[in-house]
């Protein structure tokens, strides 16, 4: 009597396949015209509009008494918006579509580990988010003449706020992708959320000028903290006094964003399924 033996897959393939997924994801991302515009180029478009429209206005003075331009004032907010769009908006819509169009069903029938799929998505967000941030910085510097930080400490802060922010945003995007029932409704569900967050979190409107209650609401969500972390890097030191509590509060940035990261991971772990399997 012969029995069927199923060979074991070699160990260590989860990371290797994760890498292969990243390449595949980045490639398809840039071939999707609408995602490139609405998530990748959107912050740059907004920065350009604001910098041009308010080019003759001053947004305050730095310690040396020089005017802060619109471009300099809006740059940190646009970097934070980029984190939200590249991570949360992009993945929530993307994965809802993949669930709808059969991509996930197909992957579910292959020996691809779920973790490799996640690595692919988060890796795609890291790569495209980094490219987006570099593009924003280069355009801000070269086109709009924004002075960038010269001290390593500022760039160090930028580095951890970026990595923590983009990862949290990606994980929350995966978690949120469960909500839309169909791929068609995904943008209708996701875009209002990201749009409202951007308006109340100091991306388009100066956070200091929002009423206290709205500031308190925004403080629950991570975007306000990411934007605050970015302001600490790119705005003059004397702007710190305009922040709530008169401080950049980087510990708060790390804490609130970190809590959202953990919550997002738990929700993903509990709710992610390749397909809506009946039972």
């Amino acid at each position, binding site marked *: *009597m*012969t*029995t*069927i033996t*199923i*060979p*074991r*897959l*070699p160990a260590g393939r989860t990371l*290797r*396949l994760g890498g*292969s997924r990243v390449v*595949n994801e980045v*490639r*398809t991302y840039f*071939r*999707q015209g609408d995602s490139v515009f609405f998530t990748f180029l959107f912050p740059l478009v907004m920065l350009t509009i604001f910098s041009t429209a308010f080019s003759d206005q001053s947004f305050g003075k730095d310690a040396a008494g020089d005017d802060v331009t619109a471009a300099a004032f809006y740059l940190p907010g646009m970097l934070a918006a980029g984190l939200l769009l590249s991570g949360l908006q992009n993945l929530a819509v993307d994965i809802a*579509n*993949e669930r709808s*169009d*059969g*991509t996930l*069903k*197909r992957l*579910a*029938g*292959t*020996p*691809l*580990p779920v973790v490799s799929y996640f690595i692919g998505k988060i890796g795609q967000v890291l790569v495209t988010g980094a490219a987006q941030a570099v593009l924003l910085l280069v355009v801000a510097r070269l086109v709009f003449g924004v002075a960038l930080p010269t001290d390593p400490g500022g760039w160090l802060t930028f580095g951890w706020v970026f990595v923590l922010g983009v990862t949290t945003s990606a994980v929350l995007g995966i978690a949120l992708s469960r909500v839309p029932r169909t791929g068609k409704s995904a943008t209708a569900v996701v875009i209002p959320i990201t749009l409202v967050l951007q308006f109340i979190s100091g991306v388009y409107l100066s956070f200091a000028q929002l009423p206290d209650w709205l500031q308190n609401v925004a403080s629950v969500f991570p975007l306000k903290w990411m934007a605050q972390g970015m302001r600490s890097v790119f705005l003059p030191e004397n702007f710190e006094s305009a922040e709530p509590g008169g401080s950049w509060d980087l510990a708060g940035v790390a804490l609130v964003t970190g809590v959202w990261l953990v919550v997002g991971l738990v929700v993903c772990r509990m709710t992610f399924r390749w*397909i*809506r*399997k*009946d*039972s």
Partner: protein
Amino acid sequence: MTISDAAISVRDLRKTYGKFTALDGVTFDIQRGETFALLGPNGAGKSTTIEILEGYRDRTSGEASVLGVDPGIGSLDWKAQLGIVLQSTGESGNVTVREQLAHFAGFYPNPRPVDEVIAAVGLEQKAGTLIRKLSGGQRRRVDVALGIVGNPALLFLDEPTTGFDPESRRQFWELIRSLKREGTTILLTTHYLDEAANLGDRAGIIAGGKLIDIGTIDAIGGADARVPVVRWVERGVVREERTASPSTLVARLVRDNGGAELDTLEVVRPSLEDIYLELVAAYEATAPAIDTHSTESTREQTEEVAK
């Protein structure tokens, strides 16, 4: 052969969605290396059966074993042995044929060479084309290619040739025959009975969630269903007679006709399609009357839920 030789073994498989019974006690075995065709009308339970065996749906009750494993809890090791061609395709397709196949090949421990697979499905000219720019039939061939690139021991084909032109269908049959020669076990559902007759070793016919017949292609339906029909024209009127001894009948007709040739004489053995249609019609005549319209819509809803 022993039970453990079976690539697929199903016992009293049931699946209900609320009040709707999609599968009502289905039992069959598929041996290793065998090509088994699962036939039946739309909504009969073919895809439900195949998707339970692929691990996509949970069964309500009964036993199922696929390569010795319960498909409800199949591991990645188990999935590495399967090739799955689903009924529907529809990915956004922003990758080329070769990119997609090379990517999927990487998931498997012992994949087939990508260019060989592309040639096997006849897409050499389209290897560098984005999948979304392909025609429906060409995309279907990509689905088949993705199903075989992992060199599966067991291949599921759910209506694989829908949208194929006749030439590509013949080419696909050749591909399946070569996989059979290599020892691949194949479970096929199809609406083309000639396809089932050409490729299948055995067939099962499913209707209303029940397996109404199962057997080798040349025995299904039983001896009675295979009785040939003799057809001829007599004084401008088409006459036909079913008989187990057609030669005797023809000899008698010729004698009666004074030894002259009979006009438009035919001796026709029922095709698998004829037998299939007769079996399904006989089942539907005896089955409890169901409002087909409402069953259809229930079915669509459950499909929706299952996705």
